[in-house]
Each structure stands twice: as structure tokens, then as C-alpha cells.
């Protein structure tokens, strides 16, 4: 390649690269706060937790073997959780799949009152009072939702409130696929 063509190609290439990055930054679907989870495709970390406001037998994710299920991390102090709540209630009404709630760093009394007030979409609610299970799941911003397959592998994670769009476009197709 001679210098004369380089003189035009280099600025054009630079422009293309800068334009591509700017375009990427303008994408409304892009959330710079979203961090790719290293847990996708890996076995969901095991744990033992009591159910909310109960001190009987501990709950473990192993009890969900053979089912496709959703682990939803929420708290009564979490405002965006209220925003996604109707979406969870809808999925629960339609019996889309079992939803297990992980009540993250919350007061059991406040959590129980919150569920009584806003409705309870959860098959089970687990009390992670000190957030240690949340830590094992890489939770950094409630609400977070994990889709776990029959063999106990995390297939999908959503950070932030679930929206009908996310459920329709991402979650439902994956659930259908995994349930085959």
C-alpha cells in the first residue's frame, strides 16, 4: 500500500472506529452499570438458608433439581423491587415457573409486611440477612434475577427490575427452551 492511499485510509479508519464507539454509547439498551456475571453457565452456588420468618428446616437449591426456576433477589428497602413486582406477580399467576425469593439484607418483619402489602409471587422466600448468599451469587444491585436450569446451572441473569419487555424477549424464550 502506498502512502497516498494511506493518507485517505487512516483518517477514514479512525473516523469509523470513533463513530462505532459513539454509536455503541448511544444505544439505549446499553447499561454501563451492568457487569457481565462470571456465573452464567456455571452451577448455582449451593447454600442453606431458613425460610423467611420460619426457623424450621433449611432450604437448599438442591431441592429444585429437575425444575427450571427463577431466583429473585429482593428486599423491602429496595425501591426498584416494587417496580418489578407486578411482573413477578403476573408470572406467578400464570404459573410460568417456580419463583424463589432471596430476601437480601432485610429485616424479616419488614419483608413479611412488604409481601403482605404488595402480594407474594414466591414459592419460597429465603432470608439472607447478612448477604453472604448474595455475595456468592455476585449480587451488587437489588433486584437481580437468576434463571436456573434443571441441572442447577445458571443460564441467565438480569440486574435491575424485570420489565415485561425483558420477560417477553429474553426470559420466556429461554424458559421454553430449557423446559423442552
Amino acid at each position, binding site marked *: 500500500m502506498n502512502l497516498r492511499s494511506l493518507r485517505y485510509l487512516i483518517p477514514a479508519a479512525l473516523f469509523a472506529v470513533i463513530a462505532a464507539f459513539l454509536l455503541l454509547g448511544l444505544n439505549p439498551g446499553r447499561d454501563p452499570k451492568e457487569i457481565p456475571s462470571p456465573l452464567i453457565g456455571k452451577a448455582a452456588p449451593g447454600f442453606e438458608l431458613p425460610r423467611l420468618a420460619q426457623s424450621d428446616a433449611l432450604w437448599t437449591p438442591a431441592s429444585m433439581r429437575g425444575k427450571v426456576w427463577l431466583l429473585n433477589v429482593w428486599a423491602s428497602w429496595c425501591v426498584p423491587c416494587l417496580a418489578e413486582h407486578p411482573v413477578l406477580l403476573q408470572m406467578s399467576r400464570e404459573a410460568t415457573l417456580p419463583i424463589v425469593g432471596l430476601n437480601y439484607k432485610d429485616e424479616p418483619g419488614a419483608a413479611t409486611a412488604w409481601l403482605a402489602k404488595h402480594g407474594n409471587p414466591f414459592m419460597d422466600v429465603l432470608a439472607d440477612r447478612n448477604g453472604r448468599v448474595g455475595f456468592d*451469587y455476585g449480587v451488587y444491585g437489588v433486584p437481580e434475577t437468576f434463571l436456573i436450569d434443571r441441572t442447577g446451572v445458571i443460564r441467565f441473569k438480569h440486574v435491575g427490575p424485570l420489565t415485561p419487555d425483558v420477560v417477553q424477549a429474553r426470559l420466556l424464550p429461554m424458559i421454553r427452551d430449557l423446559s423442552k
Partner: protein
Amino acid sequence: MSNTSLPPELPAQQAEALVRSERFRQLASELRCLVCQNQTLADSNAELAGDLRNEVLRQMAAGKNDDQIKAHLVARYGEFVLYRPTASPHNLALWAGPAVLAATGGLILWRLTRRRQALASVEMQHAQDEAALNQRLDELLNESGGQKKQKRP
């Protein structure tokens, strides 16, 4: 550093000694807080940062080395928690990018200056040739002028 409580399962004295240690300061300043993304664990007052600092303390108390502690966090939060990315293949662009850019720029600069130099030396040659020609021309003109003067009277 924030005032979040120390891990309750560690003896207070041990926890406080760990918090004051240079090693903890070093580790906490190399790990990123995930909610306030451009702050380190050492700088951040976010609750999550406090939790992660406590996790680092627990791991230190359990006798883990720095690499093990970092790996413990990376396994859960991804490489994003590291302020210094690892030199692994998927980070190649990150590490090699600046060197490649500098090398490309250097190459272009080198070729440009070489071309300039070549041009300049050609021009200098031209100038020298021209000067020599002018001189010769003057000499010829002078000679012929002299002859005319001699012939004309």
C-alpha cells in the same frame, strides 16, 4: 474508609489489626466497588463496598494469599472487580492496543519523514544543479559578451 461494622465472626482485636495492616490497604485499593464503579473498595462508602471489605478481611483471617482473595472475588463478580486487569487472552486488546497504536503511528511517522528527506535531498540536488548551470550560463554569457565587445568597435 467507611464506618461499616467489621465482620462479627472475627475477634474484634484481630479484625482491627487486619484493617490497619498495609496489606489490607493495598488489597482494598486494587479492588473495585461495583455500585460506585470508579471507586475502589478502600474509597467507597457504599454498603456493598463495606461487605466486600469484610469479605477480604475474612479471607485474610483465614490465611488466604492476595491472589486467592482476588480470585475469590473474581469468581463471583467477574474481572470487573480488579482495577488491574489480568494479562489473559481476552484482555489482549486492552494490553496490546496502546503498543499497536504507538507502533502504527511510529511507522507512519517514519515513512513520512523518510519521504520528506528523500524529497529534500532531491530538491537540494536540483538547487545545486541549478546553481551550477547558472554559473556556467553566466560564464558563457560573459565569454560571449567579451567576444562581442572585441569584435564590434
